């Protein structure tokens, strides 16, 4: 395999930082400062991506509803979400009378820490991966399941029946759809034969998993998009916070920065679902490559891997917003029916089909090794 020149990758900057730390600090301090730097970078990225997503959401929503959206602050209103952030930071945090203060306070942290833990495991680009477990997918599923506890506690400790109903709905929805999301990811794990994100991406060099596993992979992709969308409480599945009946659902009583935590984590969960879908099905940060076309591959590698990642994730997020503004809200019984009576059985059969296809060698990489083989 040829070594491609990658002028815009961040690998070199990372190496320079690494060298700089190594020359100036003792080995223990190097790992400590690296940990702190990575944590800071992730936090900053978390906030910046959330701000960008809020702006994008508002613009896309406006587009779908044939209006302008934010357009006063800066050109096309690009600074609107920055202004919103400042507003939310300086707002008063109002303690609720007769609420369980400790749990009320802790709940918002639960939600944001769960999404931050999941966020940390995402491979953003070549070498832009905070930690590469050999059970990356499992880790992601495990930590993202923590968020629901925060939502339940928030709803209960608010001492408000709307919050409570919203939290119970959200809990039921999250637990149900997590099953489907897990199973559809397991389908792809069967196809890739590994749980490690870096190996999953490397396996999709010439053929994305979506095409490699053809029928079962496409079914798994659709199911993952539906259940991921439902897990983030958005779009047609946003009945935990159905405004007309439950005001704002489980975070009705929250104000200021605590509300901001819920708000941020909602947007970041959308990003995480899109990023996982990208990594598992669409080749992650790997540029589009065709076996044998070295010149073409070279050109594709000039576009840095993080740009590929952002592009693919952007498409997935646009899809999510499209769905959100196109479908009416489901009723709670219809929502749970969809999961337990349709998605879950389809998913189980799909997993079995995938196992048969992989074992009998009917994946594209096995059928046409000349075009798609590694």
């Amino acid at each position: 395999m040829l070594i491609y020149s990658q002028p815009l990758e961040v690998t070199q900057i990372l190496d320079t930082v690494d060298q700089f730390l190594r020359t100036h600090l003792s080995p223990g301090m190097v790992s400590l400062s690296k940990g702190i730097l990575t944590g800071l970078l992730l936090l900053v990225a978390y906030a910046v991506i959330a701000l960008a997503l809020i702006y994008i959401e508002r613009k896309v929503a406006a587009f779908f509803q044939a209006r302008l959206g934010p357009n006063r602050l800066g050109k096309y209103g690009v600074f609107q979400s920055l202004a919103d952030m400042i507003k939310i930071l300086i707002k008063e945090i109002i303690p609720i009378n007769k609420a369980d203060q400790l749990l009320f306070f802790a709940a918002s942290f639960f939600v944001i820490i769960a999404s931050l833990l999941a966020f940390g495991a995402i491979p953003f680009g070549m070498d832009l991966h905070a930690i590469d477990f050999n059970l990356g997918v499992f880790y992601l599923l495990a930590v993202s399941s923590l968020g629901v506890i925060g939502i339940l506690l928030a709803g209960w400790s608010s001492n408000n029946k709307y919050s409570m109903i919203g939290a119970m709905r959200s809990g039921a929805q999250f637990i149900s759809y997590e099953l489907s999301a897990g199973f559809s990811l397991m389908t792809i794990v069967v196809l890739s034969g590994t749980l490690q994100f870096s190996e999953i991406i490397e396996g999709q060099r010439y053929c994305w998993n979506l095409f490699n596993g053809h029928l079962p992979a496409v079914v798994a992709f659709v199911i993952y998009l539906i259940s991921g969308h439902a897990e983030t409480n958005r779009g047609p599945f946003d009945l935990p916070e159905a405004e007309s009946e439950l005001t704002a659902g489980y975070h009705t009583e929250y104000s200021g920065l605590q509300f901001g935590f819920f708000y941020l984590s909602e947007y970041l969960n959308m990003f995480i679902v899109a990023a996982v879908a990208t990594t598992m099905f669409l080749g992650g940060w790997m540029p589009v490559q065709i076996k044998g076309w070295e010149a073409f591959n070279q050109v594709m590698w000039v576009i840095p891997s993080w740009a590929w990642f952002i592009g693919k994730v952007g498409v997935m997020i646009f899809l999510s917003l499209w769905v959100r503004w196109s479908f009416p809200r489901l009723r709670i019984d219809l929502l749970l029916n969809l999961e337990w009576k349709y998605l879950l059985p389809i998913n189980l059969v799909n997993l079995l089909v995938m196992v048969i296809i992989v074992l009998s060698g009917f994946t594209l990489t096995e059928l046409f090794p000349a075009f798609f083989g590694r």
Partner: protein
Amino acid sequence: MTEQIIFYMLAIAITVFSIMAVTSKLIVRSATYLLFVLLATAGLYMLLDYYFLFAVQVSVYAGGIMVLFIMAIFLTHRPGTEVRTKHGWRIGLSVLLSLAGLLLCGDIILHNAVRLYQFTDAETITMQEMGTAMLGSGKNQYLLSFEMMSVLLLACIVGAILIARKTNGSEKETKETDQ
């Protein structure tokens, strides 16, 4: 050095939150403290580089069982009110029992710690090894127990459906009350 600091932080968190989980008078709060204990235990597994157990601990205990606990607590009568201890002698009895448990566990750990240490000198266990150990039928492989476990869980599911299923009479009643 770093590992020791992290270990002490986790150990303090586990101790403090276990005591708080038992002494708290509000049942939802004790469930939350228990959750912190379970999460800190997961942190210990992470410290030992045993990532599989870490993920299992987080997803099964913290993500699964605690959600069930909290949901079940919400279904009880007024979970927000403080629980009052009524019988003084029960406290003494439970203190005695937990001390006996501590002694027993301490004794077992003390006599087996050296042996255990010899067992775990292997490299980090990967997911593949885990899978073959779980689903193999050779020596030190657990296919039979794995299958027994799934049969047990299936029986649990069937039992749960049997309990939750409405009989014809009660179904009519609930429909009437719904309307």
